[in-house]
């Protein structure tokens, strides 16, 4: 029920947006996230975005993971 799926916004109309992941497009609501732009990634639950997912944050997140694996190697 509470799936957290990252989707890419491809069009916006008011509080409604279309978002996609390879092969799948769906309509979502973006009422709860400020300044969503086409091209942004958002984390989507039961039909609405709860947060943006910024490229730099994902890279930072991966870097932090790499820190762990590097430390253990």
């Amino acid at each position, binding site marked *: *029920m509470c799936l957290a*799926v990252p*989707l890419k916004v491809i069009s916006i109309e008011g509080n409604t947006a279309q978002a*996609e992941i390879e*092969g799948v*497009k*769906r*309509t979502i609501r973006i009422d709860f996230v400020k300044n969503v732009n086409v091209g942004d990634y958002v984390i989507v639950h039961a039909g609405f975005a709860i947060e943006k997912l910024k490229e730099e944050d994902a890279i930072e997140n991966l870097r932090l993971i790499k820190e762990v694996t590097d430390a253990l190697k």
Partner: protein
Amino acid sequence: MDDIITLSYGSGGKKTSHLIEDIILPSLSCDELNKLSDGAVLDVFSNKIAFSTDSFVVSPYFFPGGDIGKLAVCGTVNDLSVCGAKPEYLSLSLIIEEGFKIEELKKIIKSIEETSKICNVKIVTGDTKVVEKGKGDGIYINTSGIGRLIYEDLGKDKISEGDAVIVTGCIGDHGAAIMASRNNLVDEFNVKSDCAPVYELAQCILQYGDKVKIMRDPTRGGVATTLNEFVENSEFTIEISEEKIPINVETNNLCEILGIDPLYSANEGKILAIVDSSVAENVVNDLRKIELGKDAAIIGYVTKNFPSKVVLHTNLGGKRVLSKLTGAQLPRIC
């Protein structure tokens, strides 16, 4: 046991098994039926034929990649094919809901015509019923089929340790396509149902004669449920590797969005086969030469590690049980 039928009883999973094993088999038990295979192998005039039936209630009855007519032909042709038979004759029985558009009926019949030509089967007998508005859902179709048995020694009892498990292509597309075409869940989904006849694939596999242990088309309940059917009540385990399972990335994405496990998503143009490991690579290579088999893969092996269970080795190297479908993942997919 419940006192009423709920949708889960039609899922193809555990409740469907209960229904069949607790209610139908005790009364109608006979050697052929008890096998609960895709079709029955029968002696007629001391020749062997295969006989299979399925009713199709798929909703929507037009879906990406096919329609209920194509599905009804492929469904029974495929059941006969995985029995080791050459499908020859089909019956066609329609239950139409009042108000159904003749135009749509014509399309469906056209699709039955085309598919049966491709499958080289003849529709030789039929029936038509009409039910009142609100007593059906557009159209339900039963096909039953007869095939000449070409290879007769398939069965669960042939499975042995070390055998390889082969799937003939990417899994879960039919269930995903149906799901995507319902309820406006998604606006667009690029994958079509895999609905197709598997006769050629079956023949390709059957070349390997007694090295082929059993075949089945993983429809309702998906790959996970069919694999369970292979080993339930046996001493064997099927162990498969997540990373070996061919799956379209789009299908995987849809399943992720909708919270569905593609291993339980229906297929309508795939075979799961268990073959002797000595020929497994060759079988896969042969399958890959056929367009429908181009993604064929060995996905696992038969062991005795966890009797009667199917075990999935995850991408991370962990393992977990892969049980039969429980509940109704998605009703009316076929």
